[in-house]
């Protein structure tokens, strides 16, 4: 019996094919969801001002500040970022600017 995947549980899934108990047999399936769509404000990363202090990383509620293997923060992952602005206030160096999201 092949394992049912979350991505197949869309709005057309039949009762025979839905996962029993609405259980899910994998982790992190929410990574398919584009919560970045919610934004009204957007953070802009000014790399030239960034001192790589990393204070923004732990306070991002949406895991939108990636950290590379050599411990450097990269540009924002806009797929999840909801534009809450916490990172901009956490940054002591003005390296994060909040601007209006243009759709």
């Amino acid at each position: 019996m092949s394992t049912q995947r979350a991505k197949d549980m869309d709005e057309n899934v039949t009762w025979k094919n839905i996962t029993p108990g609405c259980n899910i047999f994998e982790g992190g399936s929410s990574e398919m969801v584009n919560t970045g769509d919610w934004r009204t404000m957007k953070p802009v990363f000014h790399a030239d001002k960034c001192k790589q202090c990393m204070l923004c990383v732990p306070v991002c509620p949406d895991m939108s500040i990636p950290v590379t293997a050599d411990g450097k923060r990269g540009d924002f992952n806009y797929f999840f970022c909801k534009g809450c602005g916490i990172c901009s206030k956490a940054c002591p160096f003005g390296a994060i600017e909040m601007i209006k999201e243009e759709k």
Partner: protein
Amino acid sequence: MSIRERLSGNEAIAYAMKQINPDVMGAFPITPSTEIPQYFSAYVDNGEVDTEFIAVESEHSAMSTCIGAEAAGCRAISATSSCGLCYMTEMLYVAASDRLPITLAVSCRALSGPININNDHSDAMGVRDAGWIMLFAETNQEAYDNYLQAMRIGEAVSLPIMICQDGFITSHAIENIELEDTAQVRKFVGEYHPEHALLGRENPMAVGAYATPTYYIESKRLQAQAMLDAKQVILDVAAEFKKWTGRSYDLIEKYQMDDAEEAIVIIGSSAGTAKETVNEMRAQGHKVGLIKIRAFRPFPGAEITAALKNVKAYAVMDKADSFNGHCGPLFAEVAAAAMVAGVTTPKVINYIYGLGGRDVRVESIAHVFTELENIAKTGNVGETYRYLDVRE
């Protein structure tokens, strides 16, 4: 080779639990099921089982821990009665909808109020819509045998299962019983290896989703299918059980029904009393019989109505009331099944009886059959919603 013993119903259940040696038990005491976790705790503390016992702080938590443990990939069990069953009701629905084959022993007792510690079926009937498979025992032997079959049934369809017996009447009364050899029990019951679990699988698992209207009803239809499938599973497991022990089980038991003109439909220990009445009345030439329901969930409507189709009058015996102003819970189910099967010729009445441990005597049942004979003779049903043995 069965071993002859003398045990109370609670002891028999605890002994079956010991033989199975499940992974986890989470239980809270309540009269009259209290002895079950007590006996089992003695087994635990004396090293006769290596089950992990959680002395939880409430029945709601008892079922919560069972849900956690079963979802984790273990066999989890508990025992309760009455208000305890009522208190864990929210969790019973979750266990069934999460598709976790937990096993629960119930020593049936009246629900409060007033508070009463004696037997009736209001506790079990109160949770009949929670989605559990429900088997009822007439004797301690049946309680033990049902328990041995429980996990095979529940695990086959991924539904939780309740093994019910009458509190105090069988739970505390010592009767002769045939026990099976432990190694044979373990062979029959087997091991529990769910494909998915929270622990120890290649992939993680998430249990207990928030499902929007897009998904909820499909999930429930799938759950309903499991209950439909359970009927055949109960029969298959019973057939295997008979091969092993020689003892027969079915969805219902028909007693002297072949040519019965008057019959009762009944659940639990009072069926034993009623069989005595049937024997006495048959000896006097009355053509009476009874149908005892073993599997209440899934409800064997077709089987019950097939057995009733040629009687002239029957009474559905309810050891609980629904207080709906017209009938008890079992009557409602039998009547619905009769309507579906087109078995509408027999006259039918409902007796609410035995509430709060009101003694059910041979004479009580004889009165019922006498009433049925009058109804059969005159065609005059009278009141359908009746109470038995209430002081007027």
